[in-house]
């Protein structure tokens, strides 16, 4: 099917990383061969453990680090040799980086002062920006007099007030407590939707990434492991790292016994043959790691309803209100977790009970061995 010109323009990359490499010491690559396209108006999150290269990538985009190799394009301009202050990129830092000697208003006016915007216009734009983050009455205060959440809002307002081409956020909510963090996640998400800005967000918190993003780039070891929408990332992880990093995940080690199109049969190490979706495996006889979400496992399934059924022993029950986390031993693995929803009253079994568990083929993904 042929795309229209408008669709082409909408899908054209706004930010493009081409073969970007970065090393600090000339020995170890912090970012290796990064190719990444970001669309205009997109909320893209770089998610990964610390040291995975996500912050380095962000700093290269902001201009505080220089790529050892490769190029980054913003709009239709190469960012090579362009100093940070000419890039027109707003940035929100983890520790807010508000200037303590200036008031909230002066902080927000800073990027406009630099750009020699007129006094009257600065005033209206600062006011609009502060109203946008619900801090209209706080302009005369100093950052030290604000709570962490308020400071973060000021930082967001300051990064948006000059209508930058791109907004970068480097773990901006890391210092806030859980409740405030969740509230701010929604606020930033709504701001993004309302203003149509392009946001590149860095975090190591998968919940935050799932909540806010249009797409998530999972980083590990200097590489993007998978770039997809939140639901795809959770439902269809392409490798074991992603499966384990996003959400909870049961692992079963085994070897591929047979392969038939997209379905394979795997001999699990502790005994038992599992039918699974072949996602990322070698040929017959190669080792694999089966990935299975705890909430997709059924307890005592009616016979014939699912192809994979195994006897199991209940080891531990943890009551968590909305569900009961049930640890069972199955196929020689005693760290297998099943989430039993607390929808139909309490589960009828105790630690030590013998039960059967089962799952569908498409819920069980055969992935690479880490």
């Amino acid at each position: 099917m042929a795309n229209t010109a408008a669709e082409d323009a909408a899908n054209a990359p706004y930010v493009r990383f081409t073969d970007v490499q970065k090393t600090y010491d000339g020995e170890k690559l912090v970012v290796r061969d990064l190719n990444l396209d970001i669309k205009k108006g997109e909320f893209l999150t770089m998610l990964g453990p610390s040291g995975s290269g996500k912050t380095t990538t962000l700093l290269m985009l902001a201009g505080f680090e220089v790529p050892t190799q490769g190029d980054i394009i913003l709009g239709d301009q190469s960012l090579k040799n362009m100093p940070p202050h000419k890039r027109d990129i707003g940035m929100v830092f983890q520790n807010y980086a508000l200037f303590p000697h200036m008031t909230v208003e002066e902080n927000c006016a800073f990027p406009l002062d630099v750009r020699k915007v007129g006094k009257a216009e600065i005033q209206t734009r600062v006011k609009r920006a502060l109203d946008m983050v619900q801090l209209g009455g706080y302009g005369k205060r100093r950052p030290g007099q604000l709570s962490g959440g308020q400071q973060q809002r000021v930082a967001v307002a300051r990064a948006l007030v000059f209508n930058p081409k791109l907004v970068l956020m480097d773990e901006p909510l890391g210092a806030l407590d859980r409740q405030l963090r969740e509230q701010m996640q929604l606020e930033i998400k709504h701001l993004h939707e309302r203003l149509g800005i392009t946001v590149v967000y860095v975090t190591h918190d998968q919940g935050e990434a799932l909540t806010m993003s249009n797409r998530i780039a999972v980083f590990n070891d200097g590489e993007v492991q998978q770039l997809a929408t939140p639901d795809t990332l959770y439902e269809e992880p392409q490798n074991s790292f992603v499966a384990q990093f996003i959400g909870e995940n049961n692992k079963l080690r085994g070897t591929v016994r047979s392969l038939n199109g997209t379905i394979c049969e795997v001999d699990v190490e502790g005994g038992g043959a599992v039918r699974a979706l072949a996602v990322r495996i070698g040929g017959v006889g190669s080792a694999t790691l089966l990935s299975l979400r705890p909430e997709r496992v059924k307890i005592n399934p009616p016979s014939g309803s699912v192809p994979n059924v195994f006897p199991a022993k209940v080891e531990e029950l943890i009551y968590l209100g909305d569900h009961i986390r049930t640890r069972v031993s199955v196929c020689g693995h005693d760290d297998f977790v099943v989430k039993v929803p607390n929808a139909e009253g309490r589960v009828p079994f105790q630690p030590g009970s013998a039960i059967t568990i089962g799952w569908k083929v498409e819920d069980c993904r055969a992935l690479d061995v880490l």
Partner: protein
Amino acid sequence: MVSTAVPAGGLIEGSAVLKSHLRRAERTRKLRAVGLVLPLFLFIMVSFIIPIGVMLFQSIYDPDIRTLMPNTAAALDTWDGADLPDETVFAALVQDLAAAQKEKKAALIGRRLNYEMSGLRSELVKSGKAAMTMTAGPYKDQMIAVAPIWGDRATWAVIKRAARTYTPYYYLSSFDFEYTADNDVVAVPEGQAVYKAVFVRTLGISLLVTALTLVLGFPVAYLLATQPPRIANLLLILVLLPFWTSLLVRTTAWVVLLQTQGPINDLLMLTGLVDERVQLIFTRFGTIAAMTHIQLPFTLLPIYSVMKTISPSHMRAARSLGANSFYAFARVYFPQTLPGVAAGCLLTFILCLGYYITPALVGGPTDQLISTYIALFTNSTVNWGMGSALGTILLASTLVLYFVYNRLVGIDRMRLT
């Protein structure tokens, strides 16, 4: 079962018991706190606060003449100062001088009176000896015959003023004022004025040294604060090494460096920058160079410690918001260093006000600061009144500066470490 001890006898008695228990527990703690502080407190009281208080008191307390010449002092109380005093005063004078001479204290009287009118000391000794031999009056003419100063109204004015137990004389002298024979306060003639110039010089050199240490120290502090820890620690040791060396040692090193046959002159000659050796030691240049070197760490370290607390993300934020490096530095970084700059400069300035050894060893006669004169009066001429007055003025001006600074910057914003 866990049993709780409840005092018998109900709530009121129980709470009284509780309070007395609390008092007993608190008493031990209070005693311990007092015990911990007491040795240092006593040490400071005895060795520092009391001596300084006594010193300051010396600048207005002036009992010598009243104790050594009690009769003359009493007789002069009624003298109007218009003409020469009458015979009773002269009789008292002879009596006092004879007594003083017997106790060998005539020279002390002479020393005190000599402060205000030079030449009185030798006349007093002469008059003392003569007074011993005088047996009958009238004394007036006899005394004037022994020493013509007794026929001078100004001499008597000096004695009458010096006979006051509390005197503003030392402070007036410190600001280059003096009394006339008619007890008017006038400025000392141009050629004899000393202290005003010394105060101005002390302030000027202190300001200059402070400015130099700031200009030289600020970039180094910035380098220290922004380098990775390994390099920063090495640089910091280089800064601290002279800081740990004694002031006297460093000053002596400058004496060696600045000598006419010293290494700096050698170098200048070697490179052909000068044709003949330059006078560096005993000059203003030498004084300022040595003082700047010695004071550098005092200015640098507070600035460094403040700079270390400034998050590097502030500069990044400023850059990302569109400011070039210079603008970001001027608007974001520098204002945040001000508490450190103020602390470092104040520290250096106050220390410079009291410099003594360095100007004495590497400076010339016109490079001496106020401390030199304080030392001169307390050690050599034993004029404690003048030494105390100059010291009090130095202390007071330091305190005034401190309060002005507190008003402008706020001591709570100052960071020393």
